């Protein structure tokens, strides 16, 4: 065995950290004060301090390091990093069409992330957004194809959304039942269900649902154009982003202002105490996973009816995992989750433009994504100006 690599920046004598919110199931703060001070009150009470400034500087440095390392990677592929970053900037944020593309990507990311957020409140780890998204899209596709031109427009969209949410909920519910009945870790079972979900979709589009009149590609027939989500002119994006934002508000409300959200937090904080307090822990566990799965399923429907229009293997691939990371980056707080999803959306769209302009392979942007995420994850709690 090789000698262990001694990693830099090792603290000589690590000060014992305060209880880390990262390791706790989400939302310990406000645990005993159910009525939290209003957003406005908290915002006005906030004063920048030297600690905040230091924290912000460290975060900026971490982002910068991520950009420099990615620059080094692409330099090895003979791509000029500076012009690459210019391309990223001008194709995503500084461009209305590009920003529309970002919103199109961000919508399913937000929903996939919320699918992680809700179970996380109850101390559950849902890595299965990927499979729940795919199954949701598949169900939406099945309903869309079955309705054909008989039912179109808003009623069709509603039916597809309901089917997608139900299917996503079932997929996540499987993991909840495996946990409750079989004592199987939901982190592992949701991960494995992702692959089974992808297989279900593959089976359908290679087999019974394959478009025989298509060009031989494994894909279903397209749904009628009238079944697509409408486009919002100002944003240059489809209505998925509106659905996602409504979902963010709904989840924030349910988590912070309802008995159910409060009960989930109690279960997440200490299941034994919750049981003694008379809470139905099994039911709450199941409900958190069902709601999470439904949100991911809705994300699949948004991706399908907003963009894809026909089922194909690899539809929405990696969306679930990126959603998972968005939720963890934002410590499972709904509004921050949306911002994290936006950041990931920007990088994802940047990847498309890199493919076209710098001839980098599509996966190259995953490196940038990973480096940025490492930069964010690596900030210790003390450095966070939250």
């Amino acid at each position: 065995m090789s000698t262990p690599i001694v990693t830099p920046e090792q603290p000589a004598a690590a000060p014992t950290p305060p209880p880390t919110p990262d390791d706790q199931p989400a939302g310990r703060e406000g645990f005993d004060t159910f009525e939290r001070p209003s957003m406005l009150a908290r915002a006005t009470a906030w004063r920048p301090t030297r600690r905040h400034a230091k924290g912000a500087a460290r975060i900026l440095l971490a982002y910068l390091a991520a950009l420099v390392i990615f620059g080094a990677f692409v330099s090895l592929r003979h791509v000029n990093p500076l012009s690459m970053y210019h391309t990223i900037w001008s194709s995503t944020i500084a461009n209305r069409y590009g920003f529309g593309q970002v919103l199109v990507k961000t919508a399913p990311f937000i929903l996939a992330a919320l699918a992680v957020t809700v179970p996380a409140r109850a101390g559950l780890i849902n890595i299965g957004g990927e499979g729940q998204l795919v199954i949701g899209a598949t169900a939406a596709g099945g309903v869309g194809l079955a309705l054909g031109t008989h039912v179109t427009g808003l009623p069709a969209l509603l039916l597809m959304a309901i089917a997608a949410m139900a299917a996503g909920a079932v997929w996540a519910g499987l993991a909840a039942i495996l946990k409750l009945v079989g004592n199987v870790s939901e982190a592992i079972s949701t991960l494995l269900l992702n692959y089974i979900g992808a297989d279900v979709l593959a089976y359908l589009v290679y087999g019974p649902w394959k478009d025989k009149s298509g060009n031989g590609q494994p894909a279903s027939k397209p749904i009628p154009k009238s079944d697509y989500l409408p486009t919002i002119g100002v944003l240059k994006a489809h209505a998925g982003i509106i659905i996602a934002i409504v979902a963010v508000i709904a989840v924030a409300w349910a988590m912070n202002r309802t008995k159910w959200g409060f009960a989930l937090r109690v279960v997440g904080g200490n299941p034994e105490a919750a049981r003694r307090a008379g809470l139905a822990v099994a039911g709450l566990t199941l409900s958190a996973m069902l709601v999470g799965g439904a949100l991911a399923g809705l994300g699949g429907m948004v991706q399908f009816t907003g963009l894809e229009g026909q089922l194909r293997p690899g539809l929405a691939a990696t969306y679930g995992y990126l959603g998972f990371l968005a939720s963890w980056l934002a410590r499972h707080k709904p509004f921050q989750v949306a911002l994290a999803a936006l950041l990931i959306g920007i990088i994802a769209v940047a990847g498309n433009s890199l493919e076209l302009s710098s001839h980098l392979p599509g996966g190259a942007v995953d490196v940038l994504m990973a480096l940025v995420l490492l930069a964010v994850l690596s900030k210790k709690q003390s450095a966070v100006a939250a």
Partner: protein
Amino acid sequence: MIGTLALFTPAGQHQHALIVAILIGAVAGGTSILYAALGETISERAGVVNVGMEGSMLAGCLAAFAATVKTGNPWWGVLAGAVAGGALAAVHAWMVVYRKANQLATGLVVLFLAIGITDLYGTSYVSSAVHGFKSIKIPLLGDIPVVGPVLFDHDPLVYVSYVAVPVVWWFLFRSRWGLLIRTAGEKPESLVAYGLSPAKIRTAAVIAGGALGGIGGAQLSTAVALSWAQNMTVGRGFIAVALVIFAAWEPYKVMAGAYLFGAAITLGSQLQVHGVKVNQFLLDALPYLVTILVLVALARKRKNAAPEALGQAL
């Protein structure tokens, strides 16, 4: 599993050949998972869950393939695979040990890093041919009916794994290093009392585990598939993580579990070769279904076997 097989297959000689073929495939196909799961065992015994094992395997696949194409010697590939797998695990270790990041989230990020890097540098190798490992039949032992072909007619990395399993067991349960690693996973604070650094021990264990995962990747690309394809591990690293749980963090049980998955993975192609018609997609889903079912069957018993400080930051 053999029982269900009997339902599909025509009786007699043919069935015997099919079962032997599946057992051969179980060992050849299960070995990459075996390496990864051994690595994950070391890592988790030290208290660190490394979902990034999937990434270490993937990086190992490409590094080994590229090194073998360049040098013509697959043993250089094994070395390159181990280095690549270990390097990715080092990122994971640094994040979770020194930056106290969440282990599951970091593992996924490490996987993304691996997917990205292998895509960035792997595209030119997609259609490359490689002179990888060849099967070597062990004299005498290889001639024993059934047992011979199943166990003693494989690529050298399979034989290395036969040695690696008892070595890892001895290392974990009989050596001083193993004791330190297990203590880092059970009661890390007690190491501090002896003036030792649990952080360094965890880091070393995670890197060693990743290196084993990289060797698993090397076996996949230079001995089994003899090719490189984007994301070619398709969840084997995740299966390894699940496998370690129901194998109760014990190397010999890990070995048995790895061959079970090897069988599930190879079943599809073997049935096709032998002219049995079964739905391809059902067969593709089989390894994951088997994993879940075995977890259900064994999870209740295994729960207490977990290292006490598994998943906890120092």
